[in-house]
């Protein structure tokens, strides 16, 4: 039985399930509604084509920008909405439900902006955040290199001070929005002494993408989230004015890491959105497909799989909401943010794989929506801190509580 596939995806029974999430404010429900409507009506119908072609979904990004769904972290003083992390996460989950490729392209803006939001001075915030709300521009977070991913202290890109400028030389890799960004947050090593600790050796910079010497590489063809623009970026004798240093020389590492506490909750929310989509698709299929004389949903093998998928999705949601709430309430949320990101990334992969399994042979096929989800899910265990790094962080934070 061949069922209608991508075309019916937007008729998923989301609106029938009562919302169990606790909303502090009515407006949060309204934001979620707008994001959901946008995802259902505008992202879902075109996502498969963007996945096939790998084309950058700029029309969707522009629409999201027009609706105010992007750049939610930018404070009101710079033209943004100044939404809380919790609000941003609600929106992110809905967009990710539509397509995580599109959502990642949008989320990369938040990641790139976060160092400026937390460490920029007034002039820098006005200049680099202000322009994001005036037109739909993209930015990028340039830290990872071909030789250094998890080991941020191993970053080799050099920044040498020369008069009122810094000269940058180096290679960055896997930069989301690398080829579309208007500006980059860049982490480079300013202290060449190998004995200098990471906490003092690096500096954070804001670089205009059109600065001479900035060379984005080719768009990388990835397993999933294929419409997101991921590239290597080479910096060859790039000159940055000293005004573009964030906080001061040597403060880079702390800034780069500090950004994650705010950006890991939305990434976890994105993974949760993908998992929810996989669960909905699998459930819908299970209520249509028959085998051995009954709906497959009536076979316990399948219904138990769905139950476990549901458990994982609900818990991932609670985890990201907790981590967002902690940071909104003014507390350091590193422990919760890592837990949320690690858990959501892992379950997104499990739930997507199970969804393919429930679809059976159809699940393996590109005309059904779940194989894309499985391919898209993998990166959630890798970017924004690998599953292994998250465990390092969680164990460190956990043990620290007992050592006191």
């Amino acid at each position, binding site marked *: 039985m061949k069922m209608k596939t991508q075309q019916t995806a937007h008729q998923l029974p989301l*609106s029938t399930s009562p*919302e169990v999430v606790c909303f502090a404010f009515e407006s949060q429900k309204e934001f979620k509604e707008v994001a959901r*409507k946008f995802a259902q009506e505008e992202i879902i119908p075109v996502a498969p084509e963007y996945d096939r072609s790998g084309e950058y979904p700029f029309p969707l990004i522009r629409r999201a920008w027009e609706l105010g769904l992007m750049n939610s972290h930018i404070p009101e003083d710079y033209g943004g909405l100044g939404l809380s992390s919790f609000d941003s996460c609600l929106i992110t989950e809905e967009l990710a439900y539509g397509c995580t490729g599109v959502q990642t392209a949008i989320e990369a803006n938040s990641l790139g902006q976060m160092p400026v939001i937390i460490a920029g001075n007034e002039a820098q915030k006005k200049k680099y955040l202000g322009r994001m709300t005036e037109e739909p521009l993209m930015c990028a977070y340039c830290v990872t290199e071909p030789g250094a991913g998890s080991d941020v202290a191993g970053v080799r890109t050099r920044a040498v001070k020369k008069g009122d400028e810094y000269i940058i030389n180096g290679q960055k890799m896997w930069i989301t929005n690398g080829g579309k960004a208007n500006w980059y947050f860049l982490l480079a090593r300013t202290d060449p002494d190998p004995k200098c600790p990471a906490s003092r050796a690096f500096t954070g910079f804001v670089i205009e993408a059109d600065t001479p010497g900035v060379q984005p590489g080719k768009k990388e063809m990835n397993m999933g989230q294929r419409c997101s623009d991921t590239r290597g970026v080479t910096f060859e004798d790039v000159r940055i004015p000293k005004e573009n240093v964030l906080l001061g020389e040597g403060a880079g590492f702390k800034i780069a890491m500090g950004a994650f506490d705010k950006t890991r909750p939305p990434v976890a929310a994105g993974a949760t959105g993908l998992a929810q989509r996989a669960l909905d698709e699998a459930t819908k299929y299970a209520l249509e497909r028959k085998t051995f004389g009954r709906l497959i949903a009536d076979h316990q093998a399948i219904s138990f799989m769905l139950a476990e998928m549901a458990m994982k999705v609900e818990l991932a949601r609670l985890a990201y909401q907790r981590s967002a709430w902690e940071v909104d309430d003014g507390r350091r949320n590193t422990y919760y943010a890592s837990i949320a990101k690690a858990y959501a990334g892992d379950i997104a992969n499990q739930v997507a794989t199970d969804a393919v399994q429930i679809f059976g042979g159809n699940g393996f096929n590109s005309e059904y929506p779940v194989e894309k989800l499985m391919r898209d899910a993998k990166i959630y265990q890798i970017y924004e801190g690998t599953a292994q790094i998250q465990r390092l962080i969680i164990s460190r934070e956990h043990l620290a509580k007992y050592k006191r």
Partner: protein
Amino acid sequence: MAARVLVGVKRVIDYAVKIRVKPDNTGVVTDGVKHSMNPFCEIAVEEAVRLKEKKLVKEVVAVSCGPQQVQETIRTALAMGADRGIHVEVSGKDYDSLGPLQVSKILAALAKKEEASLIILGKQAIDDDCNQTGQMTAALLDWPQGTFASEVAVEGDKLKVIREVDGGLETIKINLPAVVTADLRLNTPRYATLPNIMKAKKKKITNVKPGDLGVDLTSRLEVLRVDEPPQRQAGVKVETVEDLVGKLKEAGRI
């Protein structure tokens, strides 16, 4: 030109929800079910906001009748561009029996109180499909009506309305003040953008009681029973055209 437009917005069960009849057959299940603004009311709000953007209208006032929850629906209208809202408080049994007759009396009273010169409503609500409120409101006010509008244009102190009727399109010209009911193709309602949702929080919603407007909410209708539509019966396959004709004759269809 029309200074003030009144737009009625109704909170109904969301169009995508699977409706279930209550076990006691007195109505449909509404508890815990997703509700949203009636799609035709969205189109009405959109039209009113567009008139304001074209500077043909000074103020758009969104009105809804019902319990506390209808404030959500009014907020959506405010997020779409309405200037302020009026919540007519109706709850309990009164709300259960609230129908076009009572609503049109309320709207007529409000139109006089607010000195509105244009009322835009959805052509019908997707829960009761009455298609009566607009017409009744116009009659109570003794105003002309342009119903099933697929296009509305201001021409001086008159309104040109193109109506969708069974035979095609009918163009009429009516004097203001008037009542217009929106049909599907009148416009495509805008999204409430996040900045507009934030702005809407500052817009005012006033509470009014039907008694204050001198409206009697007593219903002249009594719902006897609500049932699901009959289950679709399986069809019968026939081999030849003769068989088909025979079966149709048997069923008394021809």
